């Protein structure tokens, strides 16, 4: 039975490790500035944990095979442990785990401790059951007021977020159901939610942030490649959670300006 256990444990280990190593299913291609740092921290964690995983499972399998009961004359080492060994492996584990965390902390700090840089383009992202709306401030650079009692999801876009048209600043606000962003420019996201918690998740940007009612959360991202990227909602928000999706179109600055101008003209 010891051999069978070894075989099963090693088989499971090697099959799992194969698919991890072959990256058969993997993180999508990163298309934002932060993806590079996040991916390298991921790779480091993954390599270290992978080594530990393989070592521990291989050791377990080997031990149960090597020390299976082969007869009463088999010597057994009567020991209650080895304090020195305990201290060594405790220290090494602590150094590994906490060191790994500290190494990634600068990435977290850059992502989240600092606000968006000056000159970033502000975009307000509003989540509601079950759609995302994006608001651009327009030439005045200011977002106009919204009123909860003006919200009418069935009328879409401006009405869905309850844009208060009596506010001067809201006259040039553009509200769309798809997100357009210029490439290589930092975006200052204002995340809001109207009803329950949603989460704005763009896998290709390595970006995720919950949109919480009662809060307006500021985050920044910098898309680095032109393309179309899907948005998924990543916090259970009701029966339509699985279909609350959107699209980010990252285009050149000129195409973005053309698109904005077209939206302004429509108003």
């Amino acid at each position: 039975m010891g051999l069978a256990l070894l075989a099963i444990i090693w088989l499971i280990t090697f099959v799992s490790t194969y698919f991890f190593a072959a990256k058969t299913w993997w993180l999508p291609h990163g298309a934002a500035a932060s993806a590079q740092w996040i991916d390298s921290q991921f790779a480091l964690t993954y390599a270290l944990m992978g080594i530990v995983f393989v070592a521990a499972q291989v050791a377990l399998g080997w031990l149960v095979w090597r020390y299976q009961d082969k007869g009463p004359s088999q010597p057994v080492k009567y020991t209650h442990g080895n304090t020195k060994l305990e201290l060594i492996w405790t220290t090494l584990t602590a150094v590994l785990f906490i060191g790994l965390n500290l190494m990634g902390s600068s990435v977290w700090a850059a992502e989240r401790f600092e606000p968006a840089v000056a000159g970033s383009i502000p975009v307000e992202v509003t989540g509601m059951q079950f759609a995302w709306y994006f608001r651009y401030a327009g030439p005045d650079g200011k977002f106009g007021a919204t009123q909860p009692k003006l919200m009418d999801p069935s009328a879409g876009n401006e009405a869905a977020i309850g844009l208060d048209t009596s506010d001067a600043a809201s006259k040039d606000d553009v509200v769309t159901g798809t997100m357009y962003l210029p490439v290589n420019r930092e975006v200052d996201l204002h995340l809001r939610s109207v009803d329950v918690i949603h989460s704005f998740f763009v896998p290709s940007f390595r970006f995720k942030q919950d949109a919480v009612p009662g809060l307006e959360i500021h985050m920044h991202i910098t898309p680095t490649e032109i393309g179309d990227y899907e948005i998924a909602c990543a916090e259970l928000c009701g029966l339509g959670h699985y279909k609350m999706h959107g699209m980010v179109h990252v285009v050149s600055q000129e195409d973005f300006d053309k698109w904005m101008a077209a939206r302004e003209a429509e108003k």
Partner: protein
Amino acid sequence: MSSISPPIPVDVLKGGRGGPTPPKSGGDGYRGDGSPNYGQRLRRARLGLIVGLASVTMIFVSLTSALVFRQGLPTFDPTTSSYVRDWIPLNLPVALLVVNTVLLLFSSLSAELARRQVTRQAALAPVHSIPGVSLGNERQFPWLAVTLVLGTGFLAGQWMAWREMADRGFYVATSASSSFFYLLTATHAAHLGGGILVLLYAAGTSLLHRPVEKRRIVVDVTAWYWHFMFVLWIYIFALLWFVK
């Protein structure tokens, strides 16, 4: 049973190696001769109370953290796109609450007197079993009943305080501050109500002439619980006062 050749004498109770030594007699509440071990049972009941009070404490710790969190929390107002604080100070009926506190204080004192009274009775119980011996003055002052009356009075006073708050326009859902007022006082009142039920049970054991040692355990544990409820009330009152 396994038999192992020559028993090697071993010092069984190596306290230093093993940690605190357990009680010497069987752990089941009875002495070796079959008579009940009330001292052990009292200790165990008190230990159970302390453990139980830890969980009650956690309930109030979590309610306190919720209150502190909520009080300091600004909420995003979409109409002005800014954060506003909406903690409305409470207009507490302080005089009434002070009266209730005094009632509870006196009930705690009477509970303590009841506890000491029954401890004495339990200590003297063996004397009563000697035929022909009497300690005189068989009727003792009903401190337990006094506690019950004062405790019920506290609950009635709390009910009046709630009515007063409602009259002042603070209902449960009026504001976060009023919600916490009702929540904290009601949770405390519920726990105190539980204490009253146990006191009634203690009174019942007395009327039904259960052994005084058993009654002592019930009254002892209930009295300590009661003192805890009093200290808890002081804490809640102070908290409501300082965050109002």
